[in-house]
């Protein structure tokens, strides 16, 4: 028995008294080995299976498309390979890069504006009760407003300028971003704020070192969802009479009733989306959550 005596007037000792020699050894040696290293071959096999499933799902989709196209005239449902040929034509003429570039720029600028406004506002709403009460109604109302209406309003206000595209994107996704940052801020750990107070952290350090890192997963979810919304709005804006951008090309396809063109542009669009989603955002997520051991034991 250990010689430790606990001072517990209400009942028997509360702390387990065990002579734990093993944990001493563990604390000396344990973490010198790299943590959470999986056996190599198993990891490779997992990954292969994962990629296989993803590719399989796309192949199945194309197959279903092909089967459908057998029952309809090509003007209504073009064959997959005809459409793919159109895609490669679009890409090889260099047309694609110009149009996609304009669209991307509109999305990113609008998105950037929305981010810059919603991060501070969301944090303030999560911190100050009075600001929360004041901004909650407009933010909730903004969330329910359809992007199409914003697009119309902005074009009427700014005319057919780049500004209207930026504004429409920013205004549409702003409420969604603000809400998730606001909710995330409300859920942060008060104990850590207390800690930062004890060590006299500046307001800036509290935001950057303590609050923002706790918002990372909220932010990432908001970015994913926000980008999805931004694409939808920007295409609508472009359809209204811009003379470039993916939305404009889609309208052109519509005017000559070429299903193939419309689909081809949609596909290029999807590919770019996927690259951004899995490439950029995936990379971003991995690099900002490096501190977190990946424990996925409970998933099958």
């Amino acid at each position, binding site marked *: 028995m250990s010689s430790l*005596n606990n*001072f*517990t007037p209400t009942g028997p000792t*509360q*702390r387990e008294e065990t002579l734990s*020699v093993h944990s*001493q050894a563990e*604390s000396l040696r344990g973490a010198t080995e790299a943590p959470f290293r999986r056996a190599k071959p198993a990891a490779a096999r997992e990954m292969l299976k994962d990629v296989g499933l993803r590719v399989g799902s796309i192949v199945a989709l194309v197959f279903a498309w092909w089967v459908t196209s057998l029952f309809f005239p090509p003007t209504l449902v073009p064959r997959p390979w005809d459409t793919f040929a159109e895609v490669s034509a679009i890409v090889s003429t260099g047309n694609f890069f110009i149009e996609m570039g304009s669209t991307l720029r509109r999305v990113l600028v609008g998105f950037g504006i929305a981010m810059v406004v919603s991060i501070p506002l969301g944090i303030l709403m999560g911190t100050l009760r009075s600001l929360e009460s004041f901004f909650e109604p407009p933010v909730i109302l903004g969330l329910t407003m359809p992007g199409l209406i914003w697009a119309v309003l902005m074009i009427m206000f700014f005319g057919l300028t780049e500004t209207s595209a930026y504004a429409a994107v920013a205004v549409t996704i702003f409420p969604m971003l603000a809400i998730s940052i606001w909710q995330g801020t409300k859920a942060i750990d008060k104990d850590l704020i207390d800690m930062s107070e004890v060590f*006299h952290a500046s307001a800036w350090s509290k935001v950057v*070192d303590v609050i923002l890192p706790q918002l990372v997963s909220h932010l990432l979810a908001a970015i994913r969802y926000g980008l999805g919304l931004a694409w939808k709005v920007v295409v609508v804006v472009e359809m209204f009479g811009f003379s470039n951008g993916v939305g404009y090309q889609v309208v052109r396809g519509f005017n000559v009733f070429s299903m193939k063109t419309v689909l081809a542009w949609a596909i290029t669009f999807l590919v770019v989306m996927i690259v951004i989603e899995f490439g950029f955002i995936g990379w971003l997520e991995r690099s900002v959550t490096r501190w977190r051991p990946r424990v996925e034991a409970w998933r099958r």
Partner: protein
Amino acid sequence: MAYVHVEQAVKSFPREDGTDMLVLGGVSFDAKERGITCLLGPSGCGKSTLLNVIARLERLDQGYVEIVSNHGESGTRLPQLGYVFQDPRLLNWKRVEENLIFALRGMDVPRRQWDERIHTYLGLVGLLEFRKQYPLYLSGGMRQRVGLARALVIEPDILLMDEPFSKLDQLTARKLREDTLEICARLQQTALLVTHDVEEAAYMGDRIVIFSARPAHIVEVLDNPFSPLERDLDDVRFIQFKKQLLQTVLNLVKEKEEA
């Protein structure tokens, strides 16, 4: 040189049903200057609450806490507190050394001293080789030691420790108690150490303040007859003292039950 005086501290928390639960029922004591004061009391009696009050994270309903720190010729400034929380409270997204830097920057320690300080205090808690590691890759006990290093690294006027060893295995805890005692003695550190472990109080405390169960009041304050260097865990006289202290505590409990 720093000085803590708690006078008639009263604090209650609101319950769910709207009534108030009295936690601190008029607590008064003086902390020992340049020494460790152990706050010994049963679980839930309000020890952490009292430390939070001293750290100005909570307000008292009545009474006051006086903290004075004098810095020779540089005059008097706000006292700097190092707090070892009951849970580690690390910034898990920052590496071990960045967690210490967070405290160093907050306390305006000149940047050129950072590296040396980090080296010293991480070495002290035995975590030098984990300097660049993220906290979630450390064991619970190691995280607690990072918390201790973070409080020490700012070389505070007053060190507040809330059961810093209770989650460690016995051997590590023993080693860390020895080290902490030695550091505090060497720095002549004024420290408050919360514990519910009688042996720890006897070993660590230059002064031992015994709390009653909630609502907490002070039942006894006694000064340790042994100086830090004399506290030999195997010395018969020291063992005798520990027994006495335990007996005192048990008697207090018994009196309470009979009353």
